[in-house]
């Protein structure tokens, strides 16, 4: 894992903490939508909005469809930033 990815994950973790108050899951690249009880469609929008504002880019519609794990998000963010 290079430092950029580590940095992205750190920021993502803090956004997850802000979005989901229930901490009954372990945050890692392996985390999926099923692991997080509060990850419903409304919080999905909140999550993506917070990520867009933190990293200053916009997800494409097809990317949004694919997002169901932390790993996918981290991949997309790192592609957008590079």
């Amino acid at each position, binding site marked *: 894992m290079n430092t950029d990815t580590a940095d992205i994950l750190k920021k993502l973790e803090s956004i997850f903490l*802000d979005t989901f108050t229930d901490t009954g899951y372990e945050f890692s690249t392996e985390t999926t939508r099923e692991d997080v009880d509060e990850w419903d469609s409304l919080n999905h*929008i909140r999550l993506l*909005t917070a990520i867009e504002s933190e990293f200053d880019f*916009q997800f494409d*519609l097809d990317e*949004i469809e694919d997002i169901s794990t932390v790993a996918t998000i981290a991949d997309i963010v790192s592609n957008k930033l590079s």
Partner: protein
Amino acid sequence: MHELSWLPEPQADFNEKCSQLGDGSLSIGSLRALVNSKLSLNQSNRLFREINKLPPGELEKIKSEFSLFKLGLVSNSTVDLFIPSFFTSALRHGIFIEVITADFGQIIQEALDSDSLINQSGIDAVLLALDYRAFPFAANSVAMAAPGQGSADALEYLRTIRDGFHKNSGTVCILQTLVAPPFSLLGNMDAQLDGTLRKEIAEFNAGLILDTKASSDLLLDVGTMANMVGVYEWFDERQWYMSRVPMANKFIALYADHVSRLLAAMRGKSKKCLVLDLDNTLWGGVIGDDGLDGIRIGQGHPIGESFLAIQQYAKELNNLGVILAVCSKNEEEIALQAFKEHPDMLLKDSDFAVFVANWEDKASNIRFIAETLNIGLDSLVFVDDNPAEREIVRTIIPEVTVPELPKDASLIPRTLSAAGFFEMISFTADDAQRSKQYEENAQRRVEFHKAGGVDEYLKSLDMKITFSPFDTLGRKRITQLINKTNQFNLTTKRYTEKEVEAFELSPEHITIQVRLTDRFGDNGMISVMICLQEEDVITIDTWLMSCRVIKRRVEEAICDKLLDEAKDRKARYIRGIFRPTEKNKLVKEHYKALGFTEVESTSEYDVWELDIEQYTSKKPPIEVLGQ
């Protein structure tokens, strides 16, 4: 603007504060401070949930501090995402809101059915949050359009909904103008072509404004809101396709703030009084130092014109009934002179209902202004270019609204107007007279009562002070201060750079240059002192300080420092001299406040003396660096 630029950043400990709220250990003042910031969607959601989780007793306690409002909400879009932002922005405007939402798309049903959820809820108003996609013309083909039908049908449809709510809830409807999306078919022709979004929306909006004006319903001008931020930014098609959110998520907070302003206006909670600082707020420069001909105001100079625009804005508001007041750290006489004698000053001293120019802390002065006008603290807006003054007032009186300001004065009018402090739901000739009435009742230039809490604040400023003897690097700035400073200047002796250098090299002289930082940044060199030692007596030849840091106990820190120095030099007495000038009344009692005793007083000067052994260190809440 979507960032609500007039609001400060959310507090760094936002999450901890939310937890305190959950424990019931957060004060109402802190809650007010919490919502008076640019909350993200997540933060609004967090706060909303914490409050709704509170046990009934705790919840009632909070509700009792706000005005309750029950808002019905129908929409052709998904509104769930809006609710937390509605909630937090309503609190910001003094309203505790409960939102009753209809099921998605159930607009006509909710309005016409007297048993519908909204009609049964005893609402105070219903917001018809409809964007252009709620109306048939958006879906109809332009090629098939009949002249004048699209917008007329849409207005008729809206009337049906309004009539339904009027009849069944006896309530006020809040109606939205429509935003035309960034889209066209035949370019410039669209504005003339029946059935295009551009033409139908323009006609709809014009018709809606007339309709609303003729009724008791209220207008929420979303069309203008979106134009101000730019429709390219406003619309986010992804959001619409994914989740039927009608605008980009980043504008939800702005939209919610606009809705809340309207509700606040319905509850009589719009702001009534604009409290203005003077130096670098109503003119460029510092009147006490730069003098009447040194400040920048008026035509012919870009900076002068930008401050003139601020005065024009204030004047126009005043003509429409907003009360104006002054709260400034200045000599009252000098400040008033600016209004009376400066030819380019648009505002006159008679425009202000209360005029407070003194050296006391601004929070106490603002309380005094509210008392004098006999209006609530929550109806004041305090405008000051100095971030430290803004913060002190926010901290001590969270009820007072204190907007963040751009550094560039030319941007101030748009920032203040974007904040929409003076929202009105109706306007009559009486409203325009209101400020005059206050002015007559208020007794101007009255004495001042001090309130506590300042030391607490000073601690939170995190001030750090640095003392050093004069040196080559500082010489230019020292000379500049010596020749420029008029107000906090005990002897007003002017020296050239050569003379300053001589003090620097002289073993009989103690020279001190003082720098100060606080959590708002570096204030740079803020004070200069030159003393002469003759045997066991040290005489303060020059002591001056920048007005920016007055009332922060900085002079006490400097005095402590001088005493240390004096002890090292085996001195016994310190002698201070006050030489009165036109501009330095501020420091007449300076040495007295530090514990000196007056030993001589003539019309030319006062001499004060301090026995070093009698001195107790002041130890103000300022960290001394480099020791």
